[in-house]
């Protein structure tokens, strides 16, 4: 199997991010909460990426922040994907009251402004990583549900699906063997996006005081901490923003590659 260059870059970068996240305590030059320097120092030999709004080493915080960001974003987007795609396919294949029921529940969830939902859920439930991931996953799964239902509805009326139904295949077979492979491309593309949105969503929650607890901070939260320097060209806010962008592009390079491989699996041309 030949891996194209872009996918290789994506894989290596993603791998580096994951490794540095896993081994954060051993790699980071300074503790996460120690104010070691002055406010907003530029990059130097001592602080490779400079210092933040109260003089903490940005590189160290990026490394620690990476583990939180990647973990929460990954798990919650996997969750939203599993739930959303499953129920979306189920609704599309079964139709009837299951479709109507599920679609209306999702409509209801999406129709209520998400700020209110997030505020209510997170002020009523205890605040920890599990709850945070569950809330983000469930809220986001509504979007995935709509997309996968739309894709699957198109596929479900295809002749080969009709044929499988006539053959008497079970629900599971139809979902996993007929629809899933054919719906893979848009879903994989969507997964890349969902992952980025999850990273951004954590930062919004952190800003509302409902996200990651200090001194830990996710990357989006770090951008927020340092945002006031942005207009004056202070790099402190750009570093975490850059980290988000690079991670996002890496993940999506990998997603693109998978997308191409899945399309070639279908026996189409090229590939």
């Amino acid at each position, binding site marked *: 199997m030949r891996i194209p260059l872009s996918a290789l870059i994506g894989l290596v970068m993603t791998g580096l991010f994951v490794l540095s996240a896993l081994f954060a305590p051993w790699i980071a030059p300074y503790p996460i*909460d120690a104010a070691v320097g002055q*406010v907003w120092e530029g990059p130097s030999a001592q602080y490779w990426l400079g210092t933040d*709004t*109260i003089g903490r080493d940005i590189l160290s915080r990026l490394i620690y922040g990476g583990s939180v960001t990647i973990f929460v974003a990954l798990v919650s987007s996997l969750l939203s994907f599993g739930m959303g795609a499953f129920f979306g396919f189920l609704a599309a294949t079964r139709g009837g009251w299951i479709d109507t029921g599920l679609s209306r529940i999702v409509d209801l969830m999406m129709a209520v402004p998400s700020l209110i939902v997030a505020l209510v859920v997170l002020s009523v439930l205890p605040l920890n990583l599990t709850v945070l991931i569950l809330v983000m996953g469930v809220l986001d799964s509504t979007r995935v549900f709509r997309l996968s239902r739309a894709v699957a509805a198109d596929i479900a009326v295809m002749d080969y699906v009709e044929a499988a139904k006539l053959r008497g295949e079970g629900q599971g077979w139809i979902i996993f063997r007929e629809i899933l492979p054919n719906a893979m491309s848009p879903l994989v593309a969507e997964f890349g996006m969902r992952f980025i949105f999850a990273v951004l969503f954590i930062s919004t929650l952190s800003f509302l005081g409902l996200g990651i607890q*200090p*001194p830990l901070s996710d990357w989006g939260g770090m951008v927020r901490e340092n945002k*006031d*320097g942005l207009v004056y060209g*202070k790099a402190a806010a750009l570093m975490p923003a850059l980290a988000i962008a690079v991670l996002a592009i890496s993940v999506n390079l990998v997603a693109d590659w998978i997308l191409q491989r899945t399309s070639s699996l279908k026996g189409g041309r090229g590939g």
Partner: protein
Amino acid sequence: MSSELNHLLSLASAGKMSRRDFVGRAGALGVSTAVAGTMLSTAAFADTPVKGGLLRAGMQGGESTNTLDPALAASDVPFMINSTWGETLVDVELNGTLGLRVAEEVSSNADATQWMFKIRKGVEYHNGATLTAEDVVATLKRHTDDKAQSGAQGIVKGITDMKAEGDMVTLTLAAGNADLPFLMADYHLVIQPGGGVDNPAAGIGSGAYKIVEHEPGVRAAFEKHANYWDSSRGHADQVEILTINDNTARTAAIQAGQIHLMNRIDPKIVELLKGNTDVAIERAAGPGHYVFIMRCNAAPFDNNDLRMALKMSVNRQEMVDKILGGMGSRGNDFPINAAYPLFDDSIAQREYDAAAAADFYKKSGHDGSPILLQVAPGAFPGAVEAAQLFQASANAAGIPLQVKLEPDDGYWSNVWNVSPFCASYWGGRPVQDQMYSTAYLSTAEWNDTAFKDAHFDEVMIAARGELDQTKRKGMYSEMANILRDTGGLICPMFNDWVEGRRNEVGGWIANPAGTLMNGKAMSMCWLNA
């Protein structure tokens, strides 16, 4: 040039102070007679108020839920808007002296239990009616009433009787209070026609500008009140107060000239903003302070050794440098600083001492479980960062302090004054008595540290009626020491007002009693063409 000198200069050039007086006062500030004379002749040219134009301020601290009812004003924008269309009996001027507005004379009996306010003649409301002593009494009554929802309710409580006779308002108190006139400067107590009973949010008052349009949380537009009584105020034809809550956008707007004045420059960007030649940064050291409050009746903070351990483990200088960008001063664990009259500056400054903190901590016998400090971004600007600095310096002393981030939403009702240890701020009050009786008297409604000390209360009540200033200062000093060594207040820093003014704006006089010249910037500033 110091702001006081500036103030004198503007008085002199406006003809409100004789040349001789000016040179004398300037001499007291260390300016030679010759220099003072030259200053006056150039200033007289530069500092003559220019009439006309549209003066715009962009401010943080407004919401679309705001109203024009002065009783319900709580944040900066409503304060500013109300101060622009309305006036109080008196106000607090530069150096904490009393300025006369609707009242033209204030006097009291010997034991300060009865106060007389003579109402200025010919003060006209925006609706054409004339302001009377009856209006003043009706206004005060509305705020005192049991049915009232006023933020000033606590302030006017001590008044047992109010009377209007001719142009004289007489207030009788249950106990003597030498500071009563200062209480009448409270921004809730804007004088309204008929006391504002019929329509409290009408926005009709006797201020220099009348409201033409008001969209809460967005914009208030005013035009000059043609029959305003004080010709030394109200220079621009129109003024506007825009709510711009985002720091960066507000700063960008003043740099781009979209607004002329702004409140709350983030201290972190002051250094960066100094490079801009169009915008001057105005500082005023005031009584506002950022605090961490421990409730003295809740475990583990019911143990004074633990409280002392936490007080010793704050690195105050670091906070002033990093949270305030140097625009402020260190606190000393009582809520008073040099901005107050009768402040005792001989009380020793508390320093960061990890070893002493560790000793106190050991003595307290605390079990070593995490001590939670609850904080929200909106507790004060930089609150989360300050809490993290506190955590780091306390952990270095072996105290297991841990920060818990709370949502801004609901912070003031669910965390502040409820949880045992959290971040907060106080804007300060014009006089010491008012600050202490608002938050440190055993029975005070806003005693957010649950500090109860019978002796402290006695001294406070005694000081209130004490007319001998030396004795009074001694009493305040004793109270400060009690609070500093046994109270639940950790006061690491006093924050300066840091505000922005474009260079074309004239007439600025720093007034530390409140934001943007204590709310008077729109009435007292003008636009140089």
